[in-house]
């Protein structure tokens, strides 16, 4: 059964439609990667699932319950937890306090502050430091830990690799199997397609807010993914993506993507 079921989801940023009539289902225990270029609507999709953005149409159901109208904080208590783009740690709180905020309305479960600290060796020693004193990779680890402490059923990871060195990104992704092994369903958004294809059970490609390609990483040819990613026209007549869309509208959404 699907843990998360999204039907006909449309989300607007002002006049711009960031996500358009999207259907998406994530099975219990599955890891789904949403890939797509800058401004494809990936972050907006995750923020809408987390309840931070409001959809203009469509429904979001968690375990068969319609949660479309629920505020973000109520979704956390039901196990939908977002690791937001840009980390968003609390700057006046220490590392340990940041992790503890995850337990505020989190569910009981296998994850606790000590276990998260065990997952990242350096954390115990530096738990009294302000989060602003950490490097980008360390901050991302704390943001991930903060979400884990809430014991999510559905973990939403938004651009974990953003602005980090490849070696740091690899280290962060090394902990993912342990998270998945606890039965956590993961929905992650990545610009790094290779990374996404490596960890995901299934991949969904977004182009200007629309789902253009979905499948298991093994079943997708690299050229196929590339075409869907950049919105290039099929060489022959196939599942065509409209070539026009690489012009004005796309530039507009590009600009919007970098603003956020």
């Amino acid at each position, binding site marked *: 059964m699907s843990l998360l079921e999204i039907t006909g989801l449309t989300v607007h940023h002002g006049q711009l439609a960031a996500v358009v009539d999207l259907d998406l289902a994530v099975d219990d225990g599955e890891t789904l990667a949403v890939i797509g270029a800058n401004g494809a609507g990936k972050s907006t999709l995750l923020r809408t699932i987390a309840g931070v953005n409001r959809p203009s149409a469509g429904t979001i159901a968690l375990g068969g319950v319609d949660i479309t109208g629920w505020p973000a904080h109520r979704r956390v208590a039901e196990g939908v937890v*977002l690791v937001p783009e840009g980390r968003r740690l*609390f700057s006046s*709180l220490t590392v340990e306090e940041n992790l*503890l905020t995850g337990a505020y*309305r989190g569910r009981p479960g296998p994850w606790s502050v000590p276990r998260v600290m065990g997952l990242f060796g350096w954390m115990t020693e530096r738990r009294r430091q302000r989060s602003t004193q950490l490097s980008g990779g360390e901050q991302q680890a704390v943001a991930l830990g903060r979400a884990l402490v809430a014991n999510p059923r559905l973990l939403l990871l938004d651009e974990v690799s953003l602005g980090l060195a490849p070696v740091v990104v690899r280290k962060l992704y090394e902990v993912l199997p342990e998270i998945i092994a606890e039965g956590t369903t993961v929905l992650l958004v990545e610009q790094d397609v290779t990374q996404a294809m490596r960890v995901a059970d299934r991949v969904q490609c977004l182009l200007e807010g629309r789902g253009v390609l979905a499948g298991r990483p093994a079943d997708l040819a690299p050229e196929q993914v590339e075409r869907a990613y950049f919105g290039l026209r099929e060489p022959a007549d196939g599942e065509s993506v409209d070539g026009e869309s690489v012009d004005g509208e796309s530039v507009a959404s590009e600009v919007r993507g970098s603003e956020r």
Partner: protein
Amino acid sequence: MNWVNAVLQGALLGGLYALFACGLSLMFGVMRIVNLAHGDFAVLAAFMAYSVITLTPLGPLGATAVVIPLFALIGYLTQRGLIQHALKVGPLSTLLVTFGLSIIIQNLLLEGYSADTRSLPAGSLVSASLQLTDDIAISYLALITFVLAIVVLAGLQQFLSRTALGRMLRATSDDREAASMVGGDPRHIYAVATAIAFSIVALAGLLFAMRSSFDPSIGPTRLLFAFEAVVIGGLGSLWGTLAGGLVLGLAQTLGAQVDPAFTLLAGHLIFLGVLAFRPQGLIAGREL
């Protein structure tokens, strides 16, 4: 010896200013709301206590026990029912709403209690004093006020740093949206902050009223002291607020020592000096 006495009295008065100002500091620190009705709520608490003491067999302590929880409730409801809606519109509208509240409270008090000046019948506590030397005596009320100020500020500090709710208050102050992503309902958390601020302002209002007389229109004058203490000490810092209260209290009593007409002027001059030369306040570290 008079100067030693002035310093002592000034410091004790500063404790009251700090207690009175910390509600303002808390609301600004957590929500970026400047509560212009802060002084009027303190006066409202004094009138409520006055009614409780005169109409029921409860004494000053009983009145305190009634008024403070009541103010926590009023604070929670005011935030959820009124200020929260204004916050959505923008920071300026919270100023307008609290300014409106200030006018409404003043006029309701005028309507209900008339313009007469009153004082809170607090019994022997007000007049009794501790004789330190032949020249210096400090009133028990001033001493109790000072100790209460320290206890409340320290307690608030502990609450903010040690409890889950206090942590969420600081987290919400840092990043409201991220706080909702970890499960904090910003409206509830804001309302809790306001409830705490209101119960402290009620306590300060009662102590003010035991110390000196009050009337329905004195709120804005009192608010000015709270503003000065907060700005002198540094916005958003609780210990800064204590320091600001002490500096203001000392400035006023030392000014009065030179010439009684300088009492308020000395405080205002220190305030202007801080604004001009150290606008971040004496203690700049932000805790909220």
